[in-house]
C-alpha cells in the first residue's frame, strides 16, 4: 500500500512540476524573455513525442517476442531526419510561409484549399489516432497495476478507481490549459513544447537508468551481457527481410504524416535552422532510446517467471530486484511518454477538428464572418477545447469498449499504416506540380478503404465475420482481406501496407494524370512545389469592390483588435497610405488571408475572405506566372513588374496628394468665404445696433440694455473666433510653451467630462480600461482641452437615439491609447481624411463651431509628442489619442 501511495504522490508532484514548467515557459514567452525557448535543443527534444508509451514499454516487449525487429520503428525516423534536406526542409518552409496549422491544412491548402479533403484527412486522423490514445491510457493503467500487484492492498485500490478515467481527465485539463491559451496567429505553444522537452529528458534518463542497472548491475558488464544475449532465445538473427524493409518504410512514412509529429516538426518550428541540429541530435536520441532495449528484454526473459507480460519488463525487472526507486523513475518515464503523446496528439487533432469540421459548419449556420456574433475568437477557442475533450473522451471510450486487452498492443503499427495513407498526397503535393485534388481524394479514399478492410477490421476480432476472412465476401476468394488477388502467405500487416499504399499511390497518380486542376489548385501547386524559388503570395483575390472596413471588422473578430489594427496600419503604410485602411490590393488580401489561416486554417480563411470579397479570381498574370517558365520571360516580366509596382505606388501617392490638394483649394475658398462670413455676421449686427444707439432718440432703458448686450455677445463671439485662430497659428508655428505637470490620467479625463457639461447632456459617458491610473508628465490643461473637444464633438454629432460615448484606456507597446468611441453613424469614409483640416465641417447642419476644434486638437497632440487619429471600423465615430511612454516613465 505504501509504495502505491508514494507512487501516486510522486506522480502528482511530477504533474504539478509539468504545470509549473509550462506556466513559466508561457510567461517567459509573453514577456519576451523566451529566447532559450527557441533553441534548437528544445525543438529536438520536442520531436521525442514520437516515442510514446508504446515504444517505452512496448519496445522491450517487442524485442522479447521478435528480437531486433523493434529497431525498424526507430530506423525510419532516423533516416527521415538525416535526410532532412529532401523533404523536411521543404515541409517546414511551406508550413512557415503558408501558415499551415495541421497536416489536414497542408493537404487541403495544396489542393486548392479544398474543404472536402481537409474533412477526409481529419476523419482519417481521428480514426487512426483514437485507438492509439487509448493505448497510452492502457499503458499508464497497466504500469500502475504492475506496482499494485507487488503491493498487498494495491489491487483493491486499483479496482475501486478508474485510473484511465483520471488520467484522461488530467490530460484533457492540461491540454486545454496550455494548448488553447491563445489563438496565436502562428499557432505555437511554448508552454506545451517546454513541458514535452522536459518529459523527453525524463523518459530518456529513465530508460538509460534501467539499462545501466541491467547491464552493470545484473549482468555484470558489457561482455557478460553480450554473452547472455547470444545465449537467449533471441540470440540469433531471425529477421524476415520483408518486415525489416517494410516496417522501416512504414515508420519513416508515419514520422512524416502523424498529426502529432507534424505539429512538433512543422507547426511548432521556430526557425528552419533548427532542423540542422535536429538532423543529428534526434537520431542520436532515438539510438539512445533503443540501445538498452535488448539487454532489458533478455534479462527480463531470464529473471521473470514464464508467462509474465514482457511489455512491463522495464518496470517489473527493477521491482523484482528490489530497486523501488529505479522502478519509480521508470514509471515516470513511461508516464511521460504516454502523457506527452496524448497532449500533442490532442492539440493536433483538436486543431484539425475545429478548423475543418466545426468552423465550416459554424460559418454556414451563422451565414459568415461579417454577420455573426461579435467575437468569433471565442467560438474558435471553445471549439478547440470541446474537440480536445471529445478526442480524449473517444480514446477513453475506445479503451473501455475494447476491454483494454492485448488487442490494443497491435494498434501502434495499425495506426502507423492508417496515417501513412496520407503520404502519397503529401509528398506528391510538395514535389509534383501535376498532382490534383481529385487524384489526392481518390488515392486517400482507396487507401483508407483498403486499410480498414485488410488491417483495421481483421485486427479487431469481431470486425469481420470469420467466413469473410477465410473465404472472402460472398465467397469470392480473391477478395479475402488478408490475401487480396490470391496472393497468400504474406504477413498480414505487410500485405495490408503494400496493397493499400501501392493502390493509393496508383490511383493518386492515375486520377491526377487524367483530371484537370482548377486555377487556384495550379497556383497553390506552383507555390508549394517551387517554394524555394519564389516565396511570393498566391494572388487569388481581385481587389477594388471590397470594403477594407468590412475586412477589418471580420478580422478583428478572429485575431483581436490590437493585432489587426497594427497589421492594417503596416499594410496601409506599405501601400504608401496613412491611416488604418489599405486598398484591397491582391497582395494585401493574400497576406490577410494567410494571417487568418494561421488562426482558423487555410480553407476556412479562404471562405471567410470570399464572403466579403465575392468569388475569388485568379488574374491572368498569375496564370502566366504559373504557366510560363522560360527564364528570360520571367526576368523580363519581373523587371517590368518591379517598375510598374514602383509606378503604381508613386501614382497612388500622387493621386492621394492631388485629391488632397484639390480638396484644400476648395477648402481655402471655403475658408475665405467662411472667415469673411464669420467676421461679417457679428460685425453687421454690431454696426447696426451701435448705429441705432447713436442715432435713435428716446430709447427705453430696457431696449438700451438689450442692444448693448447684443453688441457685447457678438463682440465675445468675434473674440472667441479670433482666439481660436490665434491659438491655431501659435500651435502651428511651434511657438507654444508647454506647462508640464504631473497628474493622473483618470483625473484629466474626469475633469474633461465635467468641463464638457456631461451632467446636463443626454450623452452617456462610459469609462473602461484599467490603465486609467497612469501618472503622466505633460501639459495637462492642453490634454484636457483635447479631451473636452472630443467629448463635445460626440455631444454635438452623435445621432444615436440613446447616445453613448465609451472612453477606453489601454497600454500597448510603450504607448498609452485613449479611444473615444460613440455609437452614432460615424464619419463617412470620404470625409475621414479631411476632418482634421481647418474649417472642415462634415455637414452644414448644427454649425456649432467654425470647424477649428479637431485641427487645434491635432496640433496640440503633435506638440505633446502624441498623435490623434480616426479609428475606423468601431461601429461609430472613434478617435484615438496616443501618448508616448516616455512621458509616463518620467513621472515614475
Amino acid at each position, binding site marked *: 500500500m505504501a509504495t502505491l501511495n508514494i507512487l501516486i504522490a510522486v506522480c502528482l508532484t511530477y504533474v504539478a512540476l509539468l504545470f509549473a514548467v509550462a506556466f513559466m515557459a508561457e510567461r517567459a514567452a509573453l514577456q519576451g524573455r523566451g529566447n532559450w525557448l527557441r533553441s534548437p535543443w528544445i525543438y529536438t527534444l520536442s520531436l521525442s513525442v514520437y516515442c510514446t508509451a508504446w515504444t517505452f514499454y512496448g519496445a522491450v516487449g517487442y524485442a522479447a517476442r521478435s528480437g531486433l525487429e523493434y529497431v525498424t520503428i526507430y530506423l525510419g525516423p532516423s533516416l527521415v531526419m538525416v535526410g532532412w534536406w529532401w523533404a523536411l526542409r521543404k515541409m517546414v518552409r511551406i508550413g512557415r510561409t503558408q501558415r499551415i496549422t495541421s497536416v489536414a491544412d497542408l493537404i487541403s491548402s495544396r489542393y486548392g484549399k479544398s474543404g472536402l479533403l481537409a474533412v477526409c484527412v481529419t476523419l482519417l486522423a481521428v480514426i487512426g489516432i483514437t485507438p492509439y490514445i487509448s493505448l497510452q491510457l492502457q499503458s499508464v493503467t497497466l504500469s500502475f497495476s504492475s506496482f499494485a500487484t507487488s503491493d498487498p492492498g494495491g489491487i483493491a485500490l486499483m479496482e475501486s478507481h478508474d485510473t484511465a478515467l483520471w488520467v484522461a481527465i488530467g490530460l484533457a485539463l492540461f491540454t486545454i490549459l496550455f494548448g488553447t491559451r491563445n489563438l496565436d496567429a502562428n499557432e505555437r505553444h511554448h508552454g506545451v513544447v517546454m513541458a514535452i522537452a522536459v518529459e523527453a529528458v525524463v523518459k530518456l534518463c529513465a530508460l538509460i537508468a534501467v539499462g545501466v542497472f541491467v547491464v552493470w548491475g545484473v549482468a555484470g558488464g558489457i561482455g557478460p551481457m553480450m554473452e547472455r544475449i547470444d545465449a537467449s532465445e533471441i540470440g540469433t538473427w531471425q529477421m524476415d527481410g520483408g518486415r525489416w524493409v517494410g516496417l*522501416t518504410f512504414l515508420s519513416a512514412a508515419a514520422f512524416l504524416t502523424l498529426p502529432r509529429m507534424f505539429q512538433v516538426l512543422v507547426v511548432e518550428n521556430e526557425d528552419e535552422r533548427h532542423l540542422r541540429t535536429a538532423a543529428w541530435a534526434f537520431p542520436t536520441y532515438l539510438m539512445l532510446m533503443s540501445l538498452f532495449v535488448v539487454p532489458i528484454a533478455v534479462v527480463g526473459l531470464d529473471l521473470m517467471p514464464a508467462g509474465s507480460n514482457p511489455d512491463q519488463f522495464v518496470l517489473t525487472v527493477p521491482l523484482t530486484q528490489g530497486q523501488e526507486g529505479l522502478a519509480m523513475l521508470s514509471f515516470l518515464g513511461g508516464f511521460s511518454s504516454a502523457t506527452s503523446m496524448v497532449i500533442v496528439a490532442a492539440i493536433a487533432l483538436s486543431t484539425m477538428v475545429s478548423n475543418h469540421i466545426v468552423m465550416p459548419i459554424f460559418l454556414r449556420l451563422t451565414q459568415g464572418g461579417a454577420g455573426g456574433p461579435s467575437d468569433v475568437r471565442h467560438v474558435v477557442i471553445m471549439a478547440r477545447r470541446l474537440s480536445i475533450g471529445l478526442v480524449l473522451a473517444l480514446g477513453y471510450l475506445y479503451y473501455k469498449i475494447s476491454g483494454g486487452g492485448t488487442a490494443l498492443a497491435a494498434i501502434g503499427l495499425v495506426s502507423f499504416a492508417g496515417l501513412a495513407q496520407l503520404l502519397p498526397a503529401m509528398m506528391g503535393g510538395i514535389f509534383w506540380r501535376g498532382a490534383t485534388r481529385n487524384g489526392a481524394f481518390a488515392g486517400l479514399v482507396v487507401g483508407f478503404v483498403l486499410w480498414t478492410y485488410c488491417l483495421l477490421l481483421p485486427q479487431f476480432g469481431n470486425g469481420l465475420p470469420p467466413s469473410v476472412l477465410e473465404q472472402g465476401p460472398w465467397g469470392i476468394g480473391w477478395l479475402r482481406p488478408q490475401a487480396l488477388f490470391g496472393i497468400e502467405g504474406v504477413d498480414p500487416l505487410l500485405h495490408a501496407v503494400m496493397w493499400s499504399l501501392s493502390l493509393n499511390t496508383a490511383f493518386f497518380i492515375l486520377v491526377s494524370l487524367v483530371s484537370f486542376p482548377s486555377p487556384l489548385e495550379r497556383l497553390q501547386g506552383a507555390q508549394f512545389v517551387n517554394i524555394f524559388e519564389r516565396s511570393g503570395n498566391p494572388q487569388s483575390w481581385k481587389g477594388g469592390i471590397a470594403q477594407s472596413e468590412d475586412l477589418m471588422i471580420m478580422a478583428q473578430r478572429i485575431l483581436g483588435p490590437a493585432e489587426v489594427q497594427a497589421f492594417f496600419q503596416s499594410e496601409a503604410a506599405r501601400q504608401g497610405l496613412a491611416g488604418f485602411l489599405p486598398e484591397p490590393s491582391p497582395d494585401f488580401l493574400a497576406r490577410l488571408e494567410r494571417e487568418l489561416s494561421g488562426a482558423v486554417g487555410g480553407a476556412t480563411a479562404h471562405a471567410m475572405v470570399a464572403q466579403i470579397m465575392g468569388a475569388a479570381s485568379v488574374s491572368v498574370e498569375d496564370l502566366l506566372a504559373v504557366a510560363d517558365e522560360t527564364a528570360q520571360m520571367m526576368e523580363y516580366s519581373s523587371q517590368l513588374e518591379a517598375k510598374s509596382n514602383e509606378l503604381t505606388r508613386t501614382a497612388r501617392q500622387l493621386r492621394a496628394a492631388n485629391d488632397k490638394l484639390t480638396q484644400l483649394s476648395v477648402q481655402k475658398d471655403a475658408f475665405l468665404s467662411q472667415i469673411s462670413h464669420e467676421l461679417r455676421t457679428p460685425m453687421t449686427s454690431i454696426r447696426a445696433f451701435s448705429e441705432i444707439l447713436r442715432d435713435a432718440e428716446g430709447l427705453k432703458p430696457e431696449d438700451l440694455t438689450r442692444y448693448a448686450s447684443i453688441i457685447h455677445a457678438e463682440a465675445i463671439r468675434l473674440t472667441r473666433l479670433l482666439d481660436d485662430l490665434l491659438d491655431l497659428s501659435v500651435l502651428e508655428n511651434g511657438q507654444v510653451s508647454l506647462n508640464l505637470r504631473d497628474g493622473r490620467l483618470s483625473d484629466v479625463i474626469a475633469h474633461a467630462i465635467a468641463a464638457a457639461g456631461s451632467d446636463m447632456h443626454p450623452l452617456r459617458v462610459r469609462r473602461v480600461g484599467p490603465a486609467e491610473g497612469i501618472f503622466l508628465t505633460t501639459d495637462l490643461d492642453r490634454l484636457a482641452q483635447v479631451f473636452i473637444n472630443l467629448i463635445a464633438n460626440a455631444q454635438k454629432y452623435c445621432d444615436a437615439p440613446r447616445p453613448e460615448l465609451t472612453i477606453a484606456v489601454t497600454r500597448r507597446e510603450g504607448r498609452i491609447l485613449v479611444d473615444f468611441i460613440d455609437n452614432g453613424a460615424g464619419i463617412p469614409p470620404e470625409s475621414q481624411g479631411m476632418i482634421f483640416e481647418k474649417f472642415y465641417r462634415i455637414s452644414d447642419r448644427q454649425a456649432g463651431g467654425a470647424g477649428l476644434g479637431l485641427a487645434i486638437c491635432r496640433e496640440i497632440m503633435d506638440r505633446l509628442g502624441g498623435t490623434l487619429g480616426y479609428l475606423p471600423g468601431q461601429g461609430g465615430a472613434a478617435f484615438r489619442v496616443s501618448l508616448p511612454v516616455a512621458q509616463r516613465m518620467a513621472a515614475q
Partner: protein
Amino acid sequence: MTDTMTDKASPLFLERRSYRQRRLMDAARLLPVLAALLWLVPLLWPRSAAQAEAAGAATVTSSSAILYIFGVWTLLAVIAFVLSLTMDIKPDTPTDRGL
C-alpha cells in the same frame, strides 16, 4: 514577389566558398541514401541455421547484429553532426540554383 523573381539566370561558376557549400548540400542529400544502403545489409545475412550451412557461414548472433546496427547509427549521427557544423544555411535565400 519582386525581389525573389529578379534572380539572374544561374551563374555558371561560383566562388570557392559557395561551391564548397553546394557540395556539402549534396553530401547532406546523399547521407540518407548511404544510411539506407548500410541498413539494408542485414537482408543479406542468413536467417536460419540451415541457410547458414548452405552458404558455408555461421549464423549471425544478436550481439554482432546489435554492434553493426548501432555502429551504423552512431556513424550516421557523427557525419550529420560534422555536416551541420560546416554547412551554413540562410533561411531566406534561394539555394537551389546554379552549381
